[in-house]
């Protein structure tokens, strides 16, 4: 599953950010989280202390950073992050700086991990550090850039920005146009129900494909209409969620996203598409969080 959320902490162990003023945030870092942070920072510091195997990194603008430059970025990012974590209250700018530092640390841990043998002790530690900072960045960005707000009456306030509207409208239109094709990018929208039993899978597909296409078309339509709305119902938001997930599945397939997708994030030939993929993940995460908070727990369960 997506690396943005591949991070485990004990229940209740995640960070929280609460805006208390126009430019003031109260942060809460549970002790388990601080220990995980220390471990992740130590892992990265140890790795960049040696230049036996220098880490190089090329970003989406084709700028290449050498090992010495990355060592400086690690030190600076660590200091910025620790200043933020030690303060009970921070400004929006400080929080954003923490987000940028965390994103840098995640990218560098991922770039370093690529040089190690998959499954080796150091590789596992670096991947954990990468995922830790990915998760932290994601939490920060959601707090700084809220796009969905439950209003408490079963409806939700949507805060679209023009770039998101343009991106989502264009993608929804494109994917709608692909639904009846045999384009390879839509393979994840129609998985084989019987796995390797091709005959049964084909039979099932013949029965349901039309209905699945129609339902997808419907949710994409709801998404495009909702781009002009400020308030949506829970039902509309669920359609938005499914439609955005479909867009993400198609983009992810086109980008050939894998579990080890940091390589794509740091050196990809299609930065606009990659940016849209990441942005969709951020929006989708916010929608899921908003809807999840409204689901009731069952009375009893096996």
């Amino acid at each position, binding site marked *: *599953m*997506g690396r*943005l*959320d*591949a991070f*485990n902490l004990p229940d209740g162990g995640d960070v929280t950010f609460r805006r208390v003023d126009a430019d003031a945030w109260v942060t809460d870092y549970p002790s388990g989280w601080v220990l995980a942070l220390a471990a992740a920072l130590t892992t990265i510091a140890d790795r960049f202390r040696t230049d036996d195997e220098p880490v190089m990194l090329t970003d989406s603008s084709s700028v290449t950073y050498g090992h010495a430059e990355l060592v400086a970025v690690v030190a600076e990012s660590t200091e910025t992050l620790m200043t933020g974590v030690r303060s009970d209250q921070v400004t929006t700018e400080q929080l954003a700086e923490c987000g940028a530092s965390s994103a840098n640390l995640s990218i560098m841990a991922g770039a370093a991990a690529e040089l190690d043998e998959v499954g080796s002790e150091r590789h596992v530690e670096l991947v954990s550090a990468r995922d830790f900072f990915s998760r932290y960045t994601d939490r920060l960005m959601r707090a700084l850039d809220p796009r969905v707000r439950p209003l408490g009456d079963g409806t939700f306030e949507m805060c679209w920005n023009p770039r998101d509207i343009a991106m989502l409208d264009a993608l929804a239109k494109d994917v709608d146009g692909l639904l009846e094709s045999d384009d390879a990018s839509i393979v*994840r*929208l*129609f*998985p*084989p*129900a*019987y*796995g390797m*039993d091709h005959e049964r899978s084909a039979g*099932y597909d013949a029965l*349901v494909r039309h*209905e*699945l296409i129609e*339902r*997808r078309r419907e949710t994409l339509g709801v998404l495009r209409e909702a781009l002009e709305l400020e308030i949506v119902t829970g039902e509309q938001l*669920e359609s938005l*969620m*499914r439609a955005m*997930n*479909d867009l*993400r*599945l198609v983009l*992810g*397939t086109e980008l050939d*996203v*894998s*579990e080890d*997708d940091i390589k794509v994030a740091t050196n990809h030939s299609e930065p606009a598409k990659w940016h849209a993929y990441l942005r969709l*993940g951020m929006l*989708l*995460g916010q929608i*899921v*969080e908003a*809807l*999840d908070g409204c*689901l009731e*727990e*069952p009375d009893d*369960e096996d």
Partner: protein
Amino acid sequence: MSSTSPLETISPDVDERNELDTPWVVIVWNDPINLMEYVSFVFRKVFGYSKDKANRLMMEVHLNGRSTVSSGTREEAERDVFRLHEHGLWATLQQDT
């Protein structure tokens, strides 16, 4: 008055009985794109599972590559698979082994 008794009794062969008796299971497979919290939410929404159970199944998918998320008759399993496909999850059904 015509008799409704069958002229002969037809016994189902072993495969046929197996087809009828053995429950079908729905399996969700790991994929690199779906967000973990999204998968967990879909389990809660589609099956009515608690947050704990949905998270446990999601982690099984993530760590073991797959998880059995429901079982029942073939029709029930096909219905569940349809709903999971509708939500973009990579789900298959097969007879329990």
